[in-house]
């Protein structure tokens, strides 16, 4: 079914607020998903993968800094979704890059890492160049890389299938390179063990966005129903007393 970008954002905000995301965090989560979807990068598919687990995150420890120096840090997300954990890592990358010229942030135990794209794109918009890399999968390993130049509005994003044998930890790790002094670009090297699945240039991502602005978003009705159903958790039951709180006749 067809919905608008604003409807999707509002419904996602309610959904994440309902499962206990903090103020600021539920807006971020909604924006991350919407950003992917409106730029043609399958944000809703990623959300479908994340949905069964989003309520469990409130029980997990908050993001912690395992190691830190002036140009690098290692972050543990304690198996949270990137939706409620990755923003802090990107913030740290940006702050260190501005101070030291370049920074490397390694993130461990983070799910749904693709949602990092919006935060990285925002860095580019603010004049910080970023590149990031991660792997996913157990039997079949996929590689993901994204990069954006300083001052650019859209990133590039590449995803490919490989013959690599993955470590379990790889499935939840992510490396972010950030610089205020050099422009970082990323492409996956092309050995024989690698087949590109998707390769989005900044121009293609921009074109997708323009289409979404013009036409809105297509969403599976069942997914739409689920998002809204979860979101009803923020609504207060109706009653005569409650009707009086609206003040109308």
């Amino acid at each position, binding site marked *: *079914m*067809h*919905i*608008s*970008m*604003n*409807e999707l954002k509002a419904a996602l905000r309610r959904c994440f607020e309902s499962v206990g995301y*903090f*103020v*600021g*965090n539920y*807006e*971020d989560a909604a924006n991350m998903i919407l950003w992917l979807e409106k730029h043609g990068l399958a944000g809703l598919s990623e959300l479908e993968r994340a949905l069964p687990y989003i309520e469990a995150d409130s029980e997990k420890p*908050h*993001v*912690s*800094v395992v190691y830190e120096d002036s140009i690098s840090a290692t*972050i543990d997300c304690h198996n949270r979704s990137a939706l*409620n954990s990755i*923003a*802090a890592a990107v*913030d*740290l990358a*940006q*702050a260190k890059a*501005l*101070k030291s010229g370049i920074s490397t942030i390694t993130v461990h135990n983070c799910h749904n890492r693709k949602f990092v794209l919006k935060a990285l794109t*925002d860095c580019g918009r*603010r004049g910080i160049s970023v590149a990031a890399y991660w792997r996913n999968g157990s039997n079949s390993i996929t590689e993901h890389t994204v990069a954006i130049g300083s001052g650019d509005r859209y990133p590039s994003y590449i995803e490919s299938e490989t013959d690599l044998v993955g470590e379990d930890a790889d499935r939840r790790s992510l490396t972010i390179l950030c610089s205020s002094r050099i422009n970082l670009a990323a492409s996956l090297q092309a050995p024989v063990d690698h087949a590109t699945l998707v390769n989005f240039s900044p121009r293609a991502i921009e074109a997708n966005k323009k289409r979404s*602005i*013009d*036409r*809105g978003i297509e969403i599976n009705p069942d997914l739409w129903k689920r998002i809204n159903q979860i979101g*009803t*958790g*923020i*609504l*207060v*039951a*109706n009653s005569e*007393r*409650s*009707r009086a*709180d*609206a*003040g*109308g*006749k």
Partner: protein
Amino acid sequence: MSTSVAIETALRGDRALDLRPANQVMNLERLGAMHQNRLSFMRTLVRHLMREQWDIAPRKMELDKDGYGTVIYRIDAPHGRFDFVIFSNFLSSESRNDRVIATEWDITMALVEGEIDDLYLERLRQNVPKQEAGRVDSRVFVLSRANRSARNFDYVVDQLARGQQPEIDRIAKVGYLYRTTAVYGSGKLGMADWEKVATKFPDFARPFTAEMFVCFMLRSFSLFQAEHIAKARSPETFQPMKSEIKRYFGIGNSTGLGMAPYLLNHPQLISRWVEMRELGLARVRKFGIIDNHIRSRFSELLKRSIEHTKETTTEDQRQTHSNHVMVAELEQLERQFAPSFADWEELIQWTEQQCSLQTQELLVSLLLELYPDLVDNLENYQRTDEALDLDPTMPLAELKSLIECVYQWALAIDFSAEGARETCWYRSEEKMEPRLGSIANEEAKDKQMALGVGYAVQKCYQQINIYLEEHPDHSTARFMVAQPKLRGIVRRIQAMSKGVYGDIQANLLDRNVLPMHLLRCKLAFFGVSKFDPRSRLWVRNTMFQGAPLLEEIGQPFSDDWFMPLAPKV
């Protein structure tokens, strides 16, 4: 005089004009005392309609003798073609309900990109009358509905059918035939997002222009429909309404609590609108020449404002009292200054020392009204980027200083005082309608909306102080890792501190908070008048009263319908 760089230079920095300070302007009670002015969105829209000669005419008019049926207006604006569709259906008086939870209305409407064919019209017919229960696509960019002011409507039709004009005294009490109860845009129900409207439809790219246009068209249709029914009823005796009486009809609006959260959820936009109004005022104070023409015009507008307020009817005691006080103060202003005054500072200071907020803010509107050359182009700068961006690089110590400077008002509130945190804003399961309750309602308290900005700032400030004792050199980014719960308020503080005016300065959790102030503030920016509060939570008002008529597009236009008076016929 105005590029966006010039605007920014005038707002802040070495060459900034003298703007009224934030602690004065952003006071909630003062915002709630605002009046319409020439930068209000309705005024801006009408200037463009008239001066750009928008070509607006019905291309489908299928109404039965009782005014029920389908109408399509074709709109040729400078940059695009649009269709405005109206469905008029029978509604019994028992079913008529102005609340957002209503399910039927006298009229439902949609503004659509391009020309619609019969197939698309049928899709609209299946959905537009259902409003929130229907769906539309991204060709639609405004959806609305309206109910008749039944007694007024029937009276006007009777009079016209008998060949008589509606009595002015009667219209002065209820100056409209229809009331809107919601005007939706910005992606609701599947329609076009604001991003599409802002980038693809330059004619509607200023905030709420499309929504105001729909209300203007509703007004036009309401007048047409009344005449249509009267003529069908008694073709031999029917007389059309005189133009000066038609102009006195506006559109009623019923606005409730649903509008209030908007001001807190779009703080940068609200702050921008305030900036433009205050910049207009600052230009007038600095550059406004006072000659005989201006003195004469000021005197005329002052008299008109007095008369307009005397003609305003409301049953709300507080508003009635405020109106009486304002009339008395304006009459005193007239006696004291109208003969001669040297500069505007004299009057402004006098009102600030002697007068109520409503009078002070009316003077602001009057001053803006006098100088179109200094003010009107600010209508092009009402939009802003609404990204509440976190600055992770800001040293935490600097964030602390920022709060002390910009949010002094929040730090000064005693949240431990009796009733200081008694109110909670929540959403009902009934159409997600915003409501205002007490924390005594446990469920409402647990699910309350995050509108208590002052309280959140104070709590954040306390946490920053504790953290800084251990980590004095840490950045905001590092603090965010330790305190993820504060992400929302930290970025709001940082983002809002970049503007001149920042957040609305009020404790919205207080037991005695008056949401009416928020509603009136936004409605004043829209351009409404004749505020008629029905409780502390909802208000009736009138839109486009005194505005030119649709059929007057193409004729001489003076842009002088501020504070319109009842016609003398």
